[in-house]
């Protein structure tokens, strides 16, 4: 019986090649999109689930009130880890990680590499397997380093790295004590080397301040310890340890499961409530819809051409087939089709994965060695086949043989048919995605056109490394004297980023509540205004060379002045970070963080703070290339060990739009795919419509109808469906975009013309799709079409 089904299914496919192509291609594209999204979702959802002890590993987090709101954050004091381990028997181990960048040198090879300082227990707590070395001893003394396989390859080529020496910056030598298998693509951890925590003490990076939140702390709870009981115990640890000191803290500590951290990192009211999980949900919905849309094509085309198979159904019934068997036959057929489409979809996925990985910034791949992937593939095919095939199966199998075999059978032409409903679903989704794409693009443009408040053009920065700090004055003088730059400024962070913020400050007129106001810190030695191109509105720029007391000077931005309620800010004394800073100037607000948000209060502090970065404004008299060559010479001269890396402020500013640009690109991509699949279906429907109405068209032409009027007649029905879809899509898209835009302080309004544009766009595309068949039917010779009756 099955071979009979198979034969007839295959012959049907072969006989109607155009139909089969449309059906399979649409389904394959839909399946491929869904598979790509599912791969992404699978990766997101599996982050850090692979650790063997994942169910017992928690991150420690802080919770406190600032600027009137309750916040949660995951950076913790360095002292927290050892303290919980010592004080709570529930804790089996506690491990900290501290991000660092060092120049690693092997012979003539110098690489700037990022990695972690961490505690000895790191390799035992997390499941990052060592290819070489021992997890318990790899980090147990100060001069040991563990590197990843990738870094080992970069530094030592194919040689075994174990026992070899790596120099850190130009100061200390480390022995490779372990080589790690490269990190999997589903972990939040991102490092190329691990260094023992003890080295932090040696270089003076360690401290035991409860108020300095700068490292990540992880705890491994003992078996049978519940998160709830531990949370209740650990809650007041910071408060208890600071209550009798001058810096009494109000910060509470709580845990989050490591496996949850990736998806739930957005804090609201002191709780982690969302984050990437929202994108995961959104993408899951999009994947489901794209698959549904592809299945709808299948349903529509199968039922549209069902008249052709009505006879077969009739005959099968006459010779004794029950409805149940026919349903089974048709669902079987659609599963077969889904299988063919799946094979094609896998091909599309494999071809498009590199591009998709680039777009979503991941390393996704299909792991064919994993049996669960195979099981999933089978389930996916059957699911798609049943989803696509069930409606046609019930539809086809319910034909009355009496009607179809006598030739009196005619498909209904009712006002609302399931087919029309399905087309409307497709186009509603497609139009909604078009609207979203336009609005996301407009929002990005809007934010990009917002005045950043500083001049990004020809502004370059580089990080202070090696001997740069020692020779800074010489470097600065030479950059200007050799014509590479017109001004040079040291700062705490790149102008486009915030590295530091703090609270507990006081100023004339400040209340106790003001101690909970958080200020962002930046720093300058000289020429901040000139180099960055910010505007000064009161007072003067910091210049420690002209005014030595400027080492404790401070400039505020306008928002800070407002928050501090200072009438005459210049000359005010601000108590901050244990010192008295005198305000010398006020600058206009400039965007150093999100271009979508209000600019937060900022203090630019004199050299008594600290520096990490050198900014310089290139000399406009030269070409950028020439300036950079000249600048490179200077840095090479004073810091020959280190590779010179210059960063452009306009490029790093553009990074701020990366997430939104990605959202925009993905929305456009999915909108395009949805339109493509929907139009494939529409084209198929138009084909059958033209075939079914061939006699009507013939009669109309004989009676004198023009080609134009017939084309219009045939296209009108489809046009109505698209317009109807637009009406449904408009409020849905409006609501979704309204909610999305609301997450930005600076955002566009949703304007009516966007909907008109999306409508016109989709109508044009739909018309182009059906017009080919409509015109073909309209110009056909009526004598021919009438004779076939």
């Amino acid at each position: 019986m099955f071979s009979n089904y198979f034969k007839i299914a295959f012959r049907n496919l072969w006989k109607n090649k155009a139909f089969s192509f449309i059906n399979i291609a649409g389904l394959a594209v839909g399946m491929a999109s869904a598979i790509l999204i599912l791969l992404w979702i699978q990766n997101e959802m599996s982050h850090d689930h692979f650790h063997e002890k994942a169910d017992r590993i928690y991150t420690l987090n802080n919770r406190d009130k600032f600027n009137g709101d309750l916040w949660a954050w995951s950076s913790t004091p360095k002292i927290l880890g050892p303290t919980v381990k010592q004080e709570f028997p529930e804790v089996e181990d506690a491990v900290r990680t501290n991000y660092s960048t060092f120049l690693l040198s092997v012979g003539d090879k110098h690489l700037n590499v990022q990695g972690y300082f961490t505690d000895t227990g790191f390799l035992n707590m997390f499941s990052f397997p060592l290819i070489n070395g021992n997890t318990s001893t790899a980090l147990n003394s100060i001069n040991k380093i563990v590197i990843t396989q990738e870094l080992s390859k970069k530094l030592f080529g194919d040689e075994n790295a174990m026992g070899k020496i790596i120099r850190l910056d130009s100061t200390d030598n480390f022995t490779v004590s372990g080589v790690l298998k490269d990190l999997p693509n589903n972990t939040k951890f991102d490092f190329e080397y691990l260094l023992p925590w003890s080295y932090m003490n040696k270089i003076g990076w360690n401290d035991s301040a409860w108020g300095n939140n700068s490292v990540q702390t992880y705890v491994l709870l003992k078996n049978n310890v519940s998160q709830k009981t531990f949370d209740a115990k650990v809650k007041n640890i910071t408060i208890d340890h600071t209550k009798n000191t001058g810096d009494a803290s109000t910060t509470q500590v709580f845990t989050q499961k490591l496996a949850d951290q990736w998806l739930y990192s957005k804090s609201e009211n002191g709780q982690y409530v969302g984050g990437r999980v929202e994108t995961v949900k959104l993408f899951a919905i999009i994947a489901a819809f794209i698959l549904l849309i592809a299945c709808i094509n299948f349903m529509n085309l199968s039922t549209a051409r069902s008249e052709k198979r009505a006879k077969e159904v009739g005959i099968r019934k006459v010779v004794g087939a029950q409805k149940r068997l026919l349903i089974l036959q048709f669902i079987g057929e659609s599963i077969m089709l889904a299988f063919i489409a799946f094979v094609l979809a896998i091909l599309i996925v494999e071809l498009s994965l590199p591009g998709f990985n680039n777009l979503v910034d991941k390393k996704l791949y299909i792991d064919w060695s994993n049996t669960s992937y195979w099981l999933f593939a089978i389930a996916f095919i059957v699911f798609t086949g049943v989803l696509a095939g069930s409606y046609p199966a019930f539809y086809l199998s319910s034909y009355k043989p009496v009607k179809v075999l006598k030739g009196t059978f005619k498909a209904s032409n009712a006002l609302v048919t399931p087919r029309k409903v399905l087309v409307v679903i497709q186009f509603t989704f497609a139009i909604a995605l078009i609207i979203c794409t336009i609005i996301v693009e407009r929002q990005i443009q809007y934010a990009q056109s917002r005045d950043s408040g500083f001049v990004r053009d020809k502004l370059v920065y580089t990080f202070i490394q090696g001997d740069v700090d020692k020779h800074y004055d010489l470097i600065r003088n030479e950059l200007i004297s050799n014509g590479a730059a017109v001004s040079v400024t040291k700062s705490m962070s790149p102008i486009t980023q915030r590295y530091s913020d703090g609270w507990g400050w006081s100023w004339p007129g400040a209340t106790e509540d003001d101690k909970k106001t958080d200020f962002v810190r930046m720093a300058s030695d000289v020429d901040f205004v000139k180099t960055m191109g910010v505007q000064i509105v009161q007072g003067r720029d910091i210049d420690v060379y002209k005014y030595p007391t400027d080492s404790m000077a401070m400039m505020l931005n306008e928002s800070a002045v407002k928050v501090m309620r200072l009438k005459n800010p210049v000359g005010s004394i601000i108590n901050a970070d244990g010192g008295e800073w005198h305000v010398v100037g006020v600058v206009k607000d400039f965007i150093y963080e999100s271009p979508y948000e209000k600019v937060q209060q900022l203090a630019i502090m004199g050299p008594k703070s600290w520096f990490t970065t050198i900014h310089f404004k290139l000399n406009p008299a030269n070409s950028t290339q020439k300036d950079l060559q000249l600048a490179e010479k200077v840095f090479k001269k004073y810091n020959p060990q280190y590779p010179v890396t210059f960063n452009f402020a306009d490029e790093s500013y553009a990074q701020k739009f990366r997430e939104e640009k990605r959202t925009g690109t993905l929305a456009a991509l999915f909108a395009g795919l949805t339109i493509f699949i929907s139009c494939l279906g529409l084209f198929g429907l138009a084909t059958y419509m033209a075939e079914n109405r061939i006699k009507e068209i013939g009669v109309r032409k004989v009676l004198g109808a023009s080609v134009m009027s017939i084309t219009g007649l045939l296209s009108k029905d489809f046009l109505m469906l698209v317009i109807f879809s637009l009406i449904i899509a408009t409020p849905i898209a409006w609501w979704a975009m309204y909610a999305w835009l609301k997450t930005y302080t600076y955002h566009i309004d949703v304007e009516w013309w966007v909907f008109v544009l999306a409508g016109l766009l989709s109508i044009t595309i739909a018309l182009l799709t059906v017009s080919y068949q409509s015109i073909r039917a309209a110009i056909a010779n009526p004598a021919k079409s009438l004779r076939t009756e």
Partner: protein
Amino acid sequence: MIKITELEKVYRTEEVETVALNKLSIEVKEGEFVAVMGPSGCGKSTLLNILGMLDDPDDGSFVFNGIEVAHFNERKRADLRKNNIGFVFQSFNLIDELTVFENVELPLIYTGVKTAERKKRVEEVLDKVQIMHRRNHYPQQLSGGQQQRVAVARAVVNHPKLILADEPTGNLDSNNGNEVMALLTELNEQGTTIVMVTHSEHDARYSHRIIRMLDGQTVTENILI
């Protein structure tokens, strides 16, 4: 074998009510060859559809082989049909995507006959209707006469007790038509009951008895032998 009593069937559309069968009573005995004649719209096709259990009556009784089937559900009717009744249509109604062999094989598949047995029986019956040499051809590669012979083969492959033929020669020239009638006669002589709807007096003369219908009722019955 068939006994219908006061059978009624009315087709309704929004405006028109058409009485297709009006308290019709007919009896067909086992082994009979009955021709049903009458003008278009007299209800003969409706009668055939009800006899073939493709349609159900509005009222009245239909006893098939001693069982009242007038109100059987679709499943039961399908069961009864596949084991007892073969159909021959005016327009042949072969499945275009299946070969001659596969078309004839179809009823055996639905009655669950094993592959080897199926092959034997299909070949037997194809031999009988002299179309064996065309077994691997598709319907559209055959002449009308050949297609109808395949249709007859399909109707009898399951050894049905009853064959219902709806103008079996309507689409054929007289030579091919006569061949098909000869085939039906032969089947009847071997014991199969046949009810045939026809417009052709010539074809009707192959039967034992002619039932003439008008407006959903029988008007006359001519017994020919």
